């Protein structure tokens, strides 16, 4: 299929200030025109997007695929299918696979698998330190040449500030962005819930906000010292937002994302000891949730990620503190994001930008918008379509979502990646 016309859709591309009905023209995997048919263009395929929204495909800054190493939980094949069905056309894979992404070999293995499942836009994030152990720097240059888009220590602690400083200097010298998930382990030690009302109520070991905000503050100081480009992953509380806001105000060029569930759930929503709500960073207070929403609206937080962490059910069977943390969240990403629009927190174009052009900017990718000549990564969705989460509708191997059996609004109809139609919703 060489040429595609997507017609009659409401095309929204915030980066290019577009929100208008019309057609999108694709040839050789690229966006070649909007609204006005190019001379001599003949579509091999026409997609009718009447009543649908046509927007740049989503770019997920944090998405675990569990491969290599934990294929009992999920595989690259299963999760890229889920991603395609969620309108996600590019995803960043954190380095905490088994083995860790700290060698070019593992990086290449993942890239090869991505090609094999026809989902080439997997962007591995390289380990910041060898084995994520926090003591020796990884070979970042080699990782970058092999295809790593950034470096990170994922959720592993990096408690030695000298190592963090050197890693930041080293990364800065090679133009690598560090994805930093702030967590001062001596304070979050063994915690499994926000140190607040619910942890007190249910006797769960708590994690104070300060465990995150102190790590943010330290990292910001070192970013200033080293000039390293920092992206904060999965910010969960007000105090972190304030720190980031202040440093942005003084001219420091940092960015941040928030996991979609943090914008919708707070500690008050946790059903007693239901391990599907066990997530790290933990679900915080209502006030934190509200502040995160505002931070997204005012641009302090740039992007929304899924923080997708599929688990096998065994990982979630047990007393709350001993279960594994994480939510399977790719497929709820769009409907929950649309809820922000319905609740008047963000405009629709802004929400879509925080899922596409904003993460593209953080990654330095030429995608995430309908700029002529960019890859044709497109999501076409029906904003009104309601669907119920159940085994039939759900593609991820991880069924661990607190939204299981909920009815959500907003469903992806087609997804195109580099001009290839990688997903079409089956008619029911």
């Amino acid at each position: 299929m060489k040429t595609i016309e997507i017609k009659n859709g409401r095309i929204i591309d915030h980066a290019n200030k577009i929100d208008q009905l019309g057609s999108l023209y694709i040839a050789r995997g690229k966006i070649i025109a909007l609204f006005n048919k190019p001379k001599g263009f003949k579509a091999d395929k026409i997609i009718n997007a009447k009543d649908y929204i046509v927007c740049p495909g989503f770019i997920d800054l944090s998405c675990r695929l569990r491969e290599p190493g934990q294929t009992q939980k999920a595989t690259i094949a299963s999760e890229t299918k889920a991603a395609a069905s969620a309108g996600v056309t590019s995803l960043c894979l954190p380095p905490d696979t088994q083995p860790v992404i700290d060698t070019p070999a593992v990086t290449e293995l993942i890239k090869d698998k991505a090609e094999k499942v026809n989902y080439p836009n997997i962007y591995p994030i390289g380990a910041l330190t060898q084995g994520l152990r926090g003591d020796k720097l990884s070979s970042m240059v080699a990782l970058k040449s092999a295809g790593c888009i950034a470096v990170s220590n994922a959720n592993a602690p990096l408690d030695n500030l000298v190592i963090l400083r050197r890693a930041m200097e080293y990364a800065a010298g090679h133009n690598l962005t560090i994805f930093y998930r702030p967590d001062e382990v001596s304070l979050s030690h063994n915690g499994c819930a926000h140190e607040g009302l619910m942890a007190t109520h249910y006797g769960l070991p708590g994690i104070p906000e300060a465990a995150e905000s102190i790590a943010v503050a330290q990292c910001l100081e070192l970013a200033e010292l080293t000039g390293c480009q920092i992206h904060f992953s999965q910010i969960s509380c007000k105090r972190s937002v304030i720190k980031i806001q202040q440093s942005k105000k003084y001219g420091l060029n940092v960015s941040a994302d928030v996991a979609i569930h943090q914008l919708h759930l707070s500690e008050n929503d946790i059903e007693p000891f239901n391990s599907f709500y066990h997530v790290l960073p933990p679900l915080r207070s209502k006030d934190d949730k509200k502040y995160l929403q505002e931070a997204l609206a005012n641009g302090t937080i740039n992007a929304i990620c899924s923080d997708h962490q599929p688990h096998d059910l065994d990982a979630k069977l047990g007393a709350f503190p001993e279960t594994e943390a994480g939510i399977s969240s790719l497929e709820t990403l769009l409907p929950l994001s649309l809820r922000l629009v319905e609740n008047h927190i963000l405009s629709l174009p802004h929400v879509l930008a925080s899922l596409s052009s904003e993460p593209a900017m953080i990654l330095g990718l030429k995608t995430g918008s309908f700029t002529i000549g960019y890859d044709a990564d497109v999501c076409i969705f029906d904003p009104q379509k309601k669907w119920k989460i159940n085994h039939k509708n759900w593609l991820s191997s991880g069924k661990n979502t607190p939204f299981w059996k909920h009815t959500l609004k907003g469903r992806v109809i087609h997804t195109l990646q580099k001009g290839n139609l990688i997903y079409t919703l089956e008619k029911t």
Partner: protein
Amino acid sequence: MINQNLQLNSKGRLKHFLTIEGLSAKILNEILDTAESFVSMSQQQVQKFPLLRGKTIVNLFFENSTRTRTTFELAATRLSADVINMDIATSATSKGESLLDTINTLEAMHVDMFVVRHPLSGAAHFIAQHTSPHISIINAGDGQHAHPTQAMLDVFTIRQHHKNFSQLKIAIVGDILHSRVARSQIQALNTLGAKEVRVIAPKTLLPAHIESLGVKAYHDMKQGLNDIDVIIMLRLQKERMNSAFLASENEYFNCFGLTEKKLKLAKKNVLVMHPGPINRGVEIASSVADGHKSLILQQVSNGIAVRMAIMSMAMQIKGTSL
């Protein structure tokens, strides 16, 4: 909030006993009344009741505890049940067997009730959600969450001295942060309508937002004990000294240890309680623990009757109808 339906059957009667939360004053009073009937009957030197004859109860302890297990065992024996004690603190689960496998294995042996103690909060709930409907679960302490039978025997002991909770001011003193006992006591006392519940502890041993549980927090015994009817002292785990919660045993005793002198800060006829085992000279002076205001041993004896009441009620047998 805890789903009431998990603990109650369709007729609103006790099925599992996992936490005080969500249980009405009516049910708590029914437990206390049933326990009362067992106490008066055992005073007539009746040792055994045939209420649970033919039933099998497994004491499933993932954490060591001699006293609680012994009182549960005695309670079950006095109800004529067959009792099996399983100490799994160091065996099966450390071999990689999951909690669920342990439960499933035992369930296959036709058990009617599990009495569960576990070091993690929520373990009893998890087990109650994953066992067959005919099995009752009694929580004998889960992590830092709840120890509801202990709380019930404590309020039972208080009731033997004060019929009306609405006049009572009670202070709980010590390591509230790590205490499942305190959480359950607070819920029981508030459900039964206590006038005021206070917690007294150094700031390091009070959880965040403690007031949300319906208590007033104090960091000072002088203020905290003023006008108090009942003082409940909590055990201080010695390992707290090593993890920067406290400075020294000595300083803790000076600030929060219950001495004859501090006892005078409370009401004249104040009662002293402790869930045991006590650390003499750490949280309580021997003269107070053994003094005439102390109900500590009475609590232990009451523990049997209260647990008999809870076990028989959870098995849908009315103890009072004997």
